[in-house]
């Protein structure tokens, strides 16, 4: 869906993005990870031409991004940023309607779309449509910001640290929401974050950047198990690595036949959470149930430990 080839951007002496190439498949989430100054935000802005590339090209849905004007290109791409950037003097409904209005949709169609989005993001239209952004909580503002970004049904959504301004508990909820909505709408997301755990939680693929270069591009499991030497290794190689690895797996993968005492846990639980649960309860094994509650077997502490250490 997004095809980046040999993309570079120079600011004076500084090569902010250094001939980066990668592709993002339709309907997936790719997380760009790196420290500040790594060039990840510049790369994101090169995709929707908020910054023009020095060399290289971007293709979106097979079309060269440079073929149309910057404004026209950006109206076809969703854009959500840290701190949401809502217009403080416009109501929630008008904020969400921004791009549809720029595209000249007729009024009834815009009204229908706004209502649909408010429902999708769990904001009752009668209650929220006519409020001003400052009358909403931080989490609600963030949801309106994302709703606005996908209002004109773009195929691609760019997000720059979209959860950066939220406190940890709301951030987790917002991340789950965006995953659920992404699955429902099937949009392609390119997301910038400095938080590796966020990248692992959200990304189908992770692209690690440093000093303007793309160091490694792969699935979270690949990045964790076989990090490239140097920066990526240091980034993923901290004390949390076994736990991060476990967070990628589900209980279903390690179910074994047998019995165990205690309340059952769901097969969809991540292995990391299952480990946490086992340690907290002080048991060696727990019963596993399906989503509907049917008993499937049990999961044991040694199995999880073996899995965490397997590739380490």
């Amino acid at each position, binding site marked *: 869906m997004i095809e980046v080839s040999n993309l570079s951007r120079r600011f004076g002496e500084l090569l902010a993005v250094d001939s980066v190439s990668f592709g993002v498949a339709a309907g997936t989430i790719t997380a760009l990870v790196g420290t500040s100054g790594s060039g990840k935000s510049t790369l994101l802005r090169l995709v*929707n031409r*908020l910054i023009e590339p020095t060399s290289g090209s971007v293709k979106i849905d097979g079309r060269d991004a440079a073929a149309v004007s*910057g*404004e*026209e*290109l*950006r*109206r*076809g791409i969703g*854009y959500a*940023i*840290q*701190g*949401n*950037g*809502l*217009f*403080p*003097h416009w109501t929630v409904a008008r904020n969400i309607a*921004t*791009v549809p209005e*720029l595209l000249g949709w007729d009024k009834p169609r815009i009204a229908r779309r706004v209502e649909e989005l408010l429902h999708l993001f769990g904001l009752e239209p009668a209650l929220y449509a006519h409020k*001003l952004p400052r009358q909403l909580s931080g989490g609600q503002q963030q949801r309106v*910001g994302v709703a*606005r*970004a996908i209002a004109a049904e773009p195929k691609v959504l*760019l997000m720059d640290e979209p959860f950066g301004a939220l406190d940890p508990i709301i951030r987790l909820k917002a991340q789950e929401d965006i995953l659920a909505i992404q699955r429902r709408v099937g949009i392609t997301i390119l997301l910038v974050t400095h938080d590796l755990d966020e990248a692992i939680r959200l990304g189908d693929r992770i692209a690690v950047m440093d000093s303007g270069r793309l160091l490694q591009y792969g699935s979270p499991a690949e990045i964790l198990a076989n990090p490239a030497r140097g920066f990526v290794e240091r980034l993923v190689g901290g004390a949390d690595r076994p736990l991060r690895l476990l967070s990628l797996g589900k209980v279903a993968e390690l179910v074994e036949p047998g019995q165990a005492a205690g309340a059952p846990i769901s097969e969809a639980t991540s292995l990391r959470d299952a480990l946490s649960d086992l340690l907290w309860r002080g048991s060696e094994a727990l019963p596993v149930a399906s989503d509907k509650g049917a008993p499937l077997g049990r999961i044991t502490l040694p199995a999880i430990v073996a899995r965490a250490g397997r590739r380490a």
Partner: protein
Amino acid sequence: MNSGFSASATRRGFRSAAFAGLKRGSFDKLGVVVALLTFAALLFEPFVTLRANRIVSGKGVNVFDALPHATAFAAVVVIAIVAAAAIARTATWIRAVGAGLALVVLAFLVGETPPHLIGPNQPLARVTPAGAFWLIGFAFALLLTDAIGRLRLGPWARLAILAVAFGIAAAFLVSGQWDGLSVMKEYAVHSDSFWQEAASHVELALASLGGALVVGLPLGVACQASPRLRELTLPVLNIVQTIPSIAMYGLMMAPLAWFAAKVPGAAELGIRGIGTAPALIALFLYSLLPVVGNTVVGLDSVPAQSLEAAQGMGMTRRQRLLGIELPLATPVILTGVRIVLVQNIGLVTIAALIGGGGFGVFVFQGIGQAATDLVLLGAIPTIALAFSAAVILDALVDILKGKT
């Protein structure tokens, strides 16, 4: 860090304790000042001045001699009650209503003095409000504005109060209650030119503001976008602002006279070294700094994230400016407009010196003739205009801020 916090906490505790002590026991400070001022004025200052004709100096008459005894007594009682209410810690709205009432009583009383003091065989005699009237008026106006400020009224309520004040003044004027006063006698003589000068006063103030908006808004937008232009423009406008108004009018005269003489058609358009043209240009130059400066500050205050989002969603430069930046900057820009309008209403008065017209005509004629009454005929409407402009624009700023 820790000790600093506890020290400030102690100070706050001390202050609130002192405040509570005041509230429980003693007096309102402003009320004491108002009451002292009122009684000192009643006792030691003349209420009106009586003169044989408009230019000789007259003699002061105190409130008990200026009015029939019963009226004077009733008036002093009303004023004393309001002053007493001001001293005690009464509810704020009572203070506001009381102060308003006292001002109306004062305005009514001063109109009662001429028939009492001037006999039928003294057609040239003049009665002018004097020290006690102005001091008491000042004291209660202070009490009123303080109370209104403390009530934290919304913009619409403040506009309503202004309208009521104008209604009351209009009622006094139309009913003829003030007709015996010297200012109104000057008005009777100058009634034709009064409205003409009023119109040219307002025209000059508004036209120079209009010109400053037409030039200053785009200039402000350009300055905000380009730091270099900003560095060039704002210091120049700052210097313009420091030129005294009389000097500015003087500076305009020579180039404009030359322009009128050399450029064909200029003189026919009314451009001359004196008159409306130099006044308008000088006022326009004074207006530029507040308009440009506030436009820059207003645009600077627009959240950067909103702008980035606007750009990221494909808004053009023009759509961002008109849809996002200017609407968000409007309250700050209007604050600049308020400064300009109040400043210009005052400065137009000086423009009369170079034949620019306006209420200043009466002020300078009055000074020339040593006729204070004529000075007042020019000064009072100027003050009323400037005050109303301030109240109306303040309210407008609040109304717009409420929407963002």
